[in-house]
C-alpha cells in the first residue's frame, strides 16, 4: 500500500497539519514494514485524538472505517455480479409493459452507466484529496448530486433494485465523508453545518 493511500486515511485536521511533514520524511528514506505498522497505529490514534468526546469519537471513527469497508464490499459485489446490475429485470418489465422495448432498455442501460460514472467521479472527493478549502462541496453541488441520485432511484425504482440504491448511498457517504470530521485549516477548529461551503 502506498504512503499516499495510508495518509489519506488520517483525519482531515491531522492531514492539514502534519501530512506534508510526514510525506517529506518518507521521501528521505524508503517505507519499511515496521513504519507501515507504526503509521496504522498512528492513524487510529489520530482519529481518537481528533474527537472532543468519547461518544463523538466512536461515531466518527466507526463511520470512517465503515465507509472504507463498504467501498471494498461494493467493489467486490460489483465484481461478482458483473454487468448484471445494468440490465433491467423482470420486475421492471412488469412495471412498464407498454414501454418495455429493447430500445428503452438500451437507453436505460446507457443512462445507468452515465449516472454511475458521474457518481464515481462525485465520490472521489477533490477536497479530501487536496485539502484545499476552496474545493469543499457547495450546497448547489450537493443538491445536484442528490438530484442525480434521486433520479436514478425514482426512475429505476424497482423493489429488486435495492442494491443500486445501496451503492449510491455508499458513494454519497464517501462524497460527504468530510462532514464527519472537524476541519482545521488555520489553527482554529471549525464545524460548519454539514461541512458545506
Amino acid at each position, binding site marked *: 500500500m502506498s504512503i499516499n493511500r495510508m495518509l489519506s486515511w488520517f483525519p482531515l485536521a491531522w492531514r492539514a*497539519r502534519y501530512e506534508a*511533514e*510526514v*510525506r517529506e520524511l518518507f521521501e528521505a528514506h524508503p517505507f519499511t514494514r515496521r*513504519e507501515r505498522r*507504526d*503509521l496504522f*497505529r498512528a492513524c487510529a490514534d489520530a482519529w481518537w485524538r481528533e474527537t472532543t*468526546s468519547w461518544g463523538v469519537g466512536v461515531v466518527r471513527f466507526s463511520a470512517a472505517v465503515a465507509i472504507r469497508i463498504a467501498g471494498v464490499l461494493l467493489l467486490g459485489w460489483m465484481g461478482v455480479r458483473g454487468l448484471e446490475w445494468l440490465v433491467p429485470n423482470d420486475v421492471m418489465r412488469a412495471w412498464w409493459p407498454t414501454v418495455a422495448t429493447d430500445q428503452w432498455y438500451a437507453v436505460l442501460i446507457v443512462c445507468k452507466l452515465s449516472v454511475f460514472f458521474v457518481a464515481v467521479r462525485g465520490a472521489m472527493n477533490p477536497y479530501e484529496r487536496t485539502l484545499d478549502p476552496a474545493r469543499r462541496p457547495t450546497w448547489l453541488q450537493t443538491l445536484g448530486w442528490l438530484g442525480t441520485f434521486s433520479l436514478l432511484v425514482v426512475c429505476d425504482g424497482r423493489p429488486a433494485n435495492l442494491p443500486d440504491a445501496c451503492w449510491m448511498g455508499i458513494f454519497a457517504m464517501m462524497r460527504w465523508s468530510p462532514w464527519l470530521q472537524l476541519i482545521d485549516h488555520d489553527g482554529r477548529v471549525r464545524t460548519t453545518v454539514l461541512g458545506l461551503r
Partner: protein
Amino acid sequence: MAKKLDESLSSLGRFSEPAFNILVALADGPKHGYAMTQDIEQMTGTRPGPGTLYGAIARLEERRWIEPLPADDRRRPYKLTSAGQKVLRARIDALRAVTKIAQSRLANA
C-alpha cells in the same frame, strides 16, 4: 472541551519515551521532523517511526512543551519552550536519581 494536562512526561503513556527523545533532540536548538529522527537514531540506535514521532509531537505541542516555527518549504522546525525545558530538566533529575540508586545497588551486589 478543554483537557486537563498532567505536567509530567509520564502522562503521555506509550508516547513518554519518544516525547523525551524529542525534547532531548530539541535541547540544542530547533529541528524539523527528519533532523529529529536522525538525531534520535544517533542517540538511541533506533529510528522512531513517523507515526510515533508525530503522535508525540502532537502531544508535546498540545501541552506547549514544544512549538512550531514558520515552515521552510514543507519542513516545519520545532523548538523547545521554557515549559518544555522545565519538564525535560525534571525528567533528567528523576533519571539521575534512579541511575544513582541502580549504580549503588550494582556496586553492593
